């Protein structure tokens, strides 16, 4: 039984075929880099993984069970998705970090948030900062913390470092690599060839919606 398995998955919109007959397996603890030209279907691949969309053909299963059999909300709590352009809601950072607690009917735990702040080399003062005053890099790190607060089993990253400077990129890479060492499965879309091979054990190449190659590099 594979951890996450795509079986003959296609995704077609009204006027376009975005993913074509994709079959592959991802094992627990994998660090998969996903590469390919813009518009090749990489983001669609990740959205399928966390059930924000469903395949128009074929099946995706998680721990041997079809995604359609899961409660979508519970599934998305286990498979976290970080968007390329982070969207922070409300006025302050705190509202964003409270949200995952609200969803779970739990009181907000500021200590837990602080642990993640230090992991991403940010001060705890960020909690009360206004969203509109944050830089792109800060927003992305807050969005990552928001997704990580409850330790998802799979972390889907859609070019999360594309708008970050070198220092911020390094911090994010280190955190992601350490999470992977602790057992989190990572699926990371990147355009940077060096980054794609740095920590990954597998590299998936998608082109024109088709699986070009799946290479094990470690």
């Amino acid at each position, binding site marked *: 039984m594979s951890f996450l398995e795509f079986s003959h998955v296609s995704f077609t919109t009204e006027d376009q075929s975005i993913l074509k007959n994709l079959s592959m397996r991802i094992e627990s603890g994998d660090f998969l880099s996903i590469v390919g030209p813009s518009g090749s279907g990489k983001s669609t691949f990740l959205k399928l993984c*966390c*059930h*924000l*969309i*469903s395949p128009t053909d074929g099946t995706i299963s998680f721990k041997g069970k079809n995604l*359609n059999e899961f409660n*979508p*909300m*519970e599934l*998305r*709590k286990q498979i*976290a*998705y970080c*968007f390329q*352009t982070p*969207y922070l*809601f409300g006025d302050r950072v705190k509202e964003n970090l409270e*949200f*995952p607690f*609200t*969803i*779970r009917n739990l009181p907000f735990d500021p200590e837990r948030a602080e642990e993640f702040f230090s992991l991403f080399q940010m001060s705890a003062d960020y909690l009360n900062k206004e969203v509109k005053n944050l830089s792109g890099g800060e927003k992305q790190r807050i*969005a990552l913390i*928001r*997704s990580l607060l409850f330790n998802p089993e799979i972390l889907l990253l859609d070019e999360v470092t594309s708008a970050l400077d070198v220092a911020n990129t390094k911090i994010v890479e280190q955190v992601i690599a350490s999470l992977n060492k602790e057992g989190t499965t990572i699926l990371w879309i990147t355009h940077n060839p060096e980054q794609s091979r740095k920590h990954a054990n597998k590299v998936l190449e998608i082109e024109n919606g088709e699986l070009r190659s799946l290479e094990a590099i470690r």
Partner: protein
Amino acid sequence: MNGSTPIHVTSLLIASSLVFVTLFFSYWQKLKLEKETIISVVRAVIQLVAVGYVLNFVFGYKNPAFTTLLLLFMTFNASYNAAKRGRAIKRGLSISFLSIAVGTLVTLMILILSGIIRYEPYQIIPIGGMIISNSMVALGLCYKQMAADFKNKREEIETKLALGADILLSSKEIIRDSIKTGMLPTIDSAKTLGIVSLPGMMTGLILAGTSPMEAIKYQIMVTFMLLSTTAISSFISCYLSYRGFFNNRKQLINRPEN
């Protein structure tokens, strides 16, 4: 109508020249509203003449069941129009019908129980008409706002869904904004009553010879009832229609625009 001045048909015909002002501006400014203006004027005249005859008949026919049937007919028509404004809304007609019907029912019940009006056709039909048409406009605005928000705030909703939120929590801001959009014109017009305009009902009563002090009492009642109706209808319609933007796997779907 003790103090009212009867209007002759010839006077009305002369007044119809005012329509040409609209047509002139439309033509001059290339607004391309000439056809629509003519259609709307012709429709207004035909509908009003028809309703004049119908009301004459209805007011004499004091069967409560008939009055109720007429209210339902008006509600259906308003729902149909509101649903047309909100093509992006799934089950727009049934949602509109329920929202307008509940809003109208609650408001009319309060007005009747408080003794302000009686369930008599000459009171219920015009007041019901005001309530229903106000709800219809509010619903149209709610739907337009909701459809635009679900299109423009896709990122926000998907971010919340991706975090594991339910569709209600993911749509809460949009629902709130849509209800607000539906209610604001009524609230704004209540704020400026008497300052910017003398509203239709009050003007009508004064023209018909009622004393201004008596007319404002009616207008105050109308203000209360329109506020309550838009609130109820907007609330029900928005909370029922947001679900149509998701499928049963709690995924945001593309709905046709208005």
